[in-house]
Every structure is written in C-alpha cells, then in structure tokens.
C-alpha cells in the first residue's frame, strides 16, 4: 500500500508524530532531507542524539540541564567506558547533574519559584527580576489526564524545603483551574507543616495595555489585588 520506499515512509511517520507537524508537512520535510547532503542530515541526527544524551533534568530542581560529565568526553570514549562511574569526573557533585541556575552562586538560594514546565523557567528568567532558584513540577494535578501529585515533582519540593534553608516559596503555576488547584495543594498540603512563607503569582493587567481592552475577569482580579499608593 505504501507509495514510497520503506525508509521514506518510516521517516514521514516519525516526523508526523511531532507536535504541530501534519502529514503534509512531514512529507515535505522528508523529501527535503532526501535531497540535502549526507553531512547535513548527519548534523541534524547528531543534534537530536546529543540533545537526548547530554540534556537531562536537573537533579535538584528538574529544570533542563546539560550533563557536563558526558559532554567533556568524546563520543567514542563514552561508549567504551559505559558503566564507568561519572562521579570521578566532576568532583564534589556526587554524581548529580545540576542546571546552570542551581550551580550559579550568585542566585539567592533562600527563595524557590515553583513552575509547571521548564519553558516557564525561561519565561520568568526573561523578566530579569527574579534572582532565586526554581523547582519544576513537570506538570499539574489533572485527574482527567491521570496526573496526581505522585506523578509530579512535589515530594522532591518538600525534601528541598526540609533540607535547604528556604525562606520563601513562590507558586507560579498557570492561573487556570488545574494550575490553581496544584498551587492550593502545595500550599495547604505540602508546605504548611514547614512554616515557610508561601506566595502566589499575582493576576492582573498587561503592562502597556488599555483598561478598556482588558477582559472582565482579568480586570476583576487586578481590582482585587490593587496596591496602595499612598
């Protein structure tokens, strides 16, 4: 039934599984790759493999991190020394992979900002106004998708608050039903016993926007959370 050679069929199928790529786009990409030099496809293949091999989740905050232990080695070498303990290569890290934020000594290690996904870390980093650490949950409580607290990095957050000297946890989940519920769960069920200060991201108006264009709910939230000026 397949109209193309098997390898092309397989590639189209694989590409078609990517988010935002439909059958037509998958086909176009596959035929493009068929035309280009082998060097170019190799570079793409390497990039994909390196990403999976070298990028991992930070053992502390679950943000994405580069596994430098593997990165310093040559590809051939690592294949030969597979099973070798990585700890010897980076002294002091005890085999743990930490992200660039967790290893940055300039960050305020007393504040943790809790977000849903690594991309949310990037969003908050772009503000340039936050100097603390992060904790990525890797999802939200969503029973309809079968996700409960156990599937998230909530236990790990509790461990961090217990073990590290944390003074404030800022809950930055999305302001929708599941995000709010997750934040409520963390605040009331997980962090309450520690007596740590727990704050929630405010909801309000976009800067530079016009009141008249704001939707009623956002405007209502902004009114609820108004600030005293004098």
């Amino acid at each position, binding site marked *: 039934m397949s109209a193309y050679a098997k390898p092309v069929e397989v590639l189209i199928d694989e590409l078609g599984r990517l988010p935002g790529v439909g059958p037509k786009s998958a086909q176009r990409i596959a035929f493009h790759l068929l035309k280009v030099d082998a060097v170019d496809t190799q570079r793409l293949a390497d990039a994909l493999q390196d990403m999976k091999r070298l990028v991992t989740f930070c053992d502390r905050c679950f943000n994405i991190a580069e596994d430098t232990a593997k990165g310093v080695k040559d590809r051939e070498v690592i294949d030969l020394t597979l099973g070798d303990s990585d700890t010897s290569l980076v002294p002091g890290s005890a085999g743990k992979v930490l992200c660039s934020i967790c290893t940055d000594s300039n960050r305020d290690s007393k504040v943790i900002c809790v977000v849903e996904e690594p991309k949310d870390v990037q969003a908050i980093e772009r503000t340039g106004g936050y100097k603390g650490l992060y904790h990525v949950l890797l999802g939200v409580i969503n*029973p309809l998708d079968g996700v*409960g607290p156990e599937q998230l990095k909530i236990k790990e957050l509790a461990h961090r608050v217990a073990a590290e000297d944390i003074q404030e946890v800022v809950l930055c989940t999305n302001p929708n039903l599941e995000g709010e519920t997750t934040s409520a769960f963390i605040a009331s069920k997980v962090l309450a016993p520690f007596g740590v200060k727990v704050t929630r991201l405010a909801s309000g108006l976009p800067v530079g926007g016009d009141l008249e264009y704001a939707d009623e709910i956002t405007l209502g939230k902004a009114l609820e959370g108004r600030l005293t000026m004098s």
Partner: protein
Amino acid sequence: MIIRQLSLHNFRSYSDAQFYLAEGLNVVVGPNGIGKTNIVEAICYLSRLKSFRGAPTANLIAKGTQSAVIRAIGERQGREVLIEAEISSGRSKVLVNKQVLKRTKDLLGALQVTVFAPDDLMLIKEGPSGRREYLDDLALALDPNLEPTFSSLDRTLKQRNSLLKQISYKPDEGELATLDVWDKRFAETGEKVVALRRSLVADLVPLINQAYQRLTTTDQVVGLAYQQSWDGELFEAVQKARELDIRRKVTTQGPHRDELLITLNGFESRNEASQGEQRSLALSLKVAAHQLLFQRLGEPPLLLLDDVLSELDDDRAVGLLNNLPKGQTLITSATEIPNLVVPDNVITEFDSLSEADHG
C-alpha cells in the same frame, strides 16, 4: 433590539427570502412544513450562534449549497444595527455592523432572545437537569461574565469525578489530600452557583405568578422552591460524603444534584398537574425569564414563540397574546390566531426569491 428586516440565503428551506417585521406582535401563519420554525431558528442563531433545536450546524445550510447567510437589520435606541451570520461547514462568522467579531462572546447581548418551543414542556415533565439549566442559562443571559464560574464548576466536577474513579477503595493519604483540594474548590464555586440560582428564584416567583395567572385567568398560585441536595456548608457536606463518593466513584453532593421544585397550588407540577397546566407552566417560566431580562437589561429581548397556540385553548391563547410583555414578539402558528387578538404584522408568504434576484 428590534428586528425590522430578516433575509435568509440558503438557510434550511429558503434559497432567498426576506421578511419584514413590526415592532409588536408578528404572526407567522402557514401550513406544516412550510418553514415557519426555520424563521425562529434563524433569529435564534443570530443571538446564540447555534440552533435552538440542537441541530448540527451543517443541517442549517440548504442542501447542495456551501454556506448559508442570515442577515437582520434592526434598531436599537433609534440607531440601525446590522447583524450578519455566515454559516459554512468550515468556520462560521458573525458580523455586527460589518465588523467581524473576534470572539463569539462579543455577540452575547447584541441580540437577546427568549424562545419557547413545544419541547419546552420537558422543563416541567422531565428531570431536574432541565430546570437547573433554565436557571443557569438565565443567569448567563443576565450577566455573561458569569460564564467562567459555570464552566469552572463543570470542570471541577469532572476532575473530581475522574479522581474518584482512580482512587482505590482504601485510598492512601496522598489521594485523600488531593481530594481535599478539589473538595474546597468545588465547594467554593458550588456555593457561588447556588447563591446565584437562589437569588434568581426569588426574583422569578412574582413574575411567574403574574404570567401564569394572566395566561390562565385563574388565581392559582405557582410556587418555586430551590431544593438544595445537601445540608449546611457544601464543603462539609462533600467531606462528610467522602466514603460514599469513593464507593460510588462519583460526586454525590452538590449543585449538580439540586432541584427547582415547581408547584401549583401546593401540588407538585411534575406529577400532579394536568397536561394543560404543565404547558401553561412551562410557558409561564419562559415569560417570567423574559420579563426578568427586560427588567434588568432595560430592553425587552425578542420573544420567539414557536407553535404554542396548538397547545392552548382559545381562552388561554387570547390570555397569552393579549398580555404579552412589551417588545417585539414573533409567533408561529399552523392555524389562524383567535379573532380577539390583533397582530401588528402577519406573515403568510414564504415564497423564496425576492424581486431583486429576478432583476
């Protein structure tokens, strides 16, 4: 808003048709199957962007054509308003005064309608869900900003039920803690919705009595009672019922189990009222909602009565039509209306193709 002129293009049975409407009572008279209800459906679509009969959008487009167009020229506070809807199998769009609406929500309120169709008898005869929906729809028509409250309650309930299905008979501490959080949210939103419904019921009681008594020319008393399905605070009730919920794997307490009890002289209307009384009650519920919208919004919604006369005797038909709320009304009927009623406009021509198209 008052509709002055309605044009239909490839809409259901109409390839091209124009109807002129008057400000008061418009009567559409014609034999069965000629397309009277289609006119009601078209006006209703301009208000809600869906069929009041629950028909799929594809059914609204005339067979063998790509898209249907409904155009209404109306008047609001002395200014002309043009609402156009293009219905196609792909994306339908609406334009108000030639401006495309970005969100369908923006349309809400441009044209308010109250519809009564024979199926609305189910309001009285069937289970409580239709009556809850009647209250919730009315609350939304009065204040579209409440939409997130209702959808949030709906989703919280779905999430909680989904969690209950995953929980084992002997739930662990983590599962119970998660349930706690959903309970709290469910209770908060649930109490809000119940408060809204209760205040609506209080507002409706005098209006429904007035509507019913005028319609039937009796002095029977209609009672509306909001029956909450739990006692005390919702949060406590939900927590108390936890074991039961886990066993049944469904949320047993909450506004989704409430009832709006409708009585006639103290007797429950669902089981004890006659067929005719039930019809009059259903109609009165709609008229009362219509009156409340008028009171609150300062402008009467367009009242659409589809084929109601067939179910009323002449006295009640006169009682209804001569006591209509102020504003524009459109009524369809297969038979001539009673002589005691003087309509402002009668539509008997359903022939397609206006003169311009012959040109």
